[in-house]
């Protein structure tokens, strides 16, 4: 019996009729709530929250190709890095801020296109290993191309926004938008086609789904959203270095998505909050933090393959059943 879900989750996933647009309203409210949290709490907690939200954007991008399409891409960290370095370097060479952002996102999109084409014929485990090594090559270039990226020391980033408050609005807004984007895509044709590829790619091809083109579109979209997150982390920290985009980051983003719930709209937010938030909030040294993240990740992937969101589903389904009885 082949593995029927991406992570072998056995539970059925109901394809319910599309609902009215209150989903987006719910997410927008969530975004507003997070903005209030960001501005109100003291600078240490707001810096942790800002990182969580930026990671939510990058992981939401990953959610398109990995969550909906079932392709375990471990290269999201590289797109995140290209967004950051692309925008920082473009501004250094005199581009205005908004032009630099667009160029960075385009560059990531192009890399996404190339990586998508290169790996179009590989699947499953090979795709994961191939994308991981691609992320490794990108992080090697970032840390060794001394003349361009100034090596491990990293580079400073000109501040493109009017003020810090402006940035503090853009980050939660972009996070909410990235969640909405995944909801929007999942109900459009691209989303359906990705979902058929997740379920059974060969069958999808045989009912007329242009699988190669769909995967490529999903991959480029993931890359662009990842780059947006890169631009924001560069603006927020004011300085970037290759360690921020180590090949490892791509893997931890995949962990965040899986823990949160791949394919679910809120998966990236919950996953990022957990994986990025916990070590910082308990201000553990990164050694203990990563150890905890590792343990929790292995346990979650084995015990609840669907991640938190499927656990919440199960709890709520049980609750609604008991309520009705």
């Amino acid at each position: 019996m082949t593995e029927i879900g991406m992570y072998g989750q056995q539970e059925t996933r109901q394809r319910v009729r599309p609902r009215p647009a209150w989903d987006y309203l719910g997410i927008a409210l969530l975004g507003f709530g997070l903005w209030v949290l960001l501005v109100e709490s003291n600078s240490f907690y707001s810096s942790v929250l800002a990182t969580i939200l930026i990671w939510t954007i990058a992981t939401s991008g990953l959610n398109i190709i990995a969550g909906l399409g079932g392709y375990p891409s471990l290269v999201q960290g590289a797109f995140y890095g290209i967004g950051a370095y692309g925008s920082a370097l473009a501004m250094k060479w005199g581009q205005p801020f908004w032009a630099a952002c667009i160029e960075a996102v385009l560059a990531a999109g192009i890399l996404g296109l190339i990586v998508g084409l290169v790996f179009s014929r590989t699947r499953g485990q090979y795709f994961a290993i191939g994308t991981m090594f691609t992320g490794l090559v990108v992080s090697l270039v970032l840390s060794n191309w001394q003349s361009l990226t100034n090596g491990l020391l990293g580079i400073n980033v000109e501040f493109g926004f009017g003020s810090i408050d402006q940035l503090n609005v853009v980050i939660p807004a972009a996070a909410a938008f990235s969640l909405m984007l995944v909801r929007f895509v999942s109900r459009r044709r691209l989303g359906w086609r990705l979902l058929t590829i997740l379920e059974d790619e060969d069958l999808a091809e045989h009912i007329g789904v242009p699988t190669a083109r769909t995967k490529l579109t999903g991959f480029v979209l993931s890359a662009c959203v990842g780059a947006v997150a890169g631009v924001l982390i560069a603006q927020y920290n004011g300085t970037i270095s290759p360690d921020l985009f180590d090949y490892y980051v791509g893997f931890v983003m995949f962990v965040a998505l899986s823990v949160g719930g791949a394919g679910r709209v809120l998966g990236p937010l919950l996953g990022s909050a957990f994986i990025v938030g916990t070590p910082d909030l308990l201000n553990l040294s990164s050694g203990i933090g990563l150890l905890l993240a590792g343990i929790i990740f292995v346990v979650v992937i084995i015990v609840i393959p669907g991640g938190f969101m499927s656990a919440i589903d199960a709890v709520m389904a049980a609750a609604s059943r008991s309520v009705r009885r």
Partner: protein
Amino acid sequence: MLIQAAVNGVVLGSLFALLAVGLTLTYGVMEVPNFAQAGVITLSAYAMLWLNQTAACPFWIAALGGLVVGGVVSVLTERIAYRFVRTRPLAAPVVALGLLLILDNTALILFGGDHVSLSPPYAGDVIYVGSATVPAVGVALIGTTAVALLALWLFLQRTKTGRAIRAVSQNAEAAAILGIRLERQYIVSFFISGILAGLVAFAYGPMYAVYPYMADAILLNAFVVVVLGGLGNVAGAAVCGLLLGLLESFGAIYVSAAYQNLFGFAVLLLMIVLRPAGLFTNRSRRVA
């Protein structure tokens, strides 16, 4: 310069071969890209260090102790995690990286982040090969790899358990039908892979230093070899390990040292695209 590059290549190649053979064993038997092997190497190296310095055992006793620790930790990774994802090839690479996270950071917490040197008695000696020089630790690495490959080859060809493991890696279901107890083969192959990891710690530890992330970079290099050699193909891994070592060392001297391990990764990416099942594969294993 040519001999020196060749000598460097053989030393590096032996390291990759020793690493790749360990990885291939677990990949062949259970289709698991065992990235956690780097963590096993690190913990085994720290065990040797602790035995040699804190418990003041002679170097050779400490080395043996390290091998056993490697074997036990490797079996543990199978028992607590890999066992549950046997039917889920997509979950395997991520669980492997999760385990690597756990093992590396356990070493960081237990032994701290400092670079400490593991020094065998021959640490300072030098061997001359024509005009080229080879540090004694390099020669020890070549020797260790040669002995390990020979022993592994004999084990897999001659012993009953060895043949059982090869059967499992060919076709697990068929092997099960023939009455081979799969659980036992998984444990044995992970134990051997752990011993091989211990040998890497013994041979590679003295070359640079022991620190929590010491084996991550070289393991990724070795993974190129595993894919090149064909998943689950031990002979392929050994030969390709040597080839990659030579490629990287000549590349380092004649092209650019900065991008030394980039050559290996470029080859890997090419491989995955052109021949997903590897150069030497004895059957085209369609990875899910």
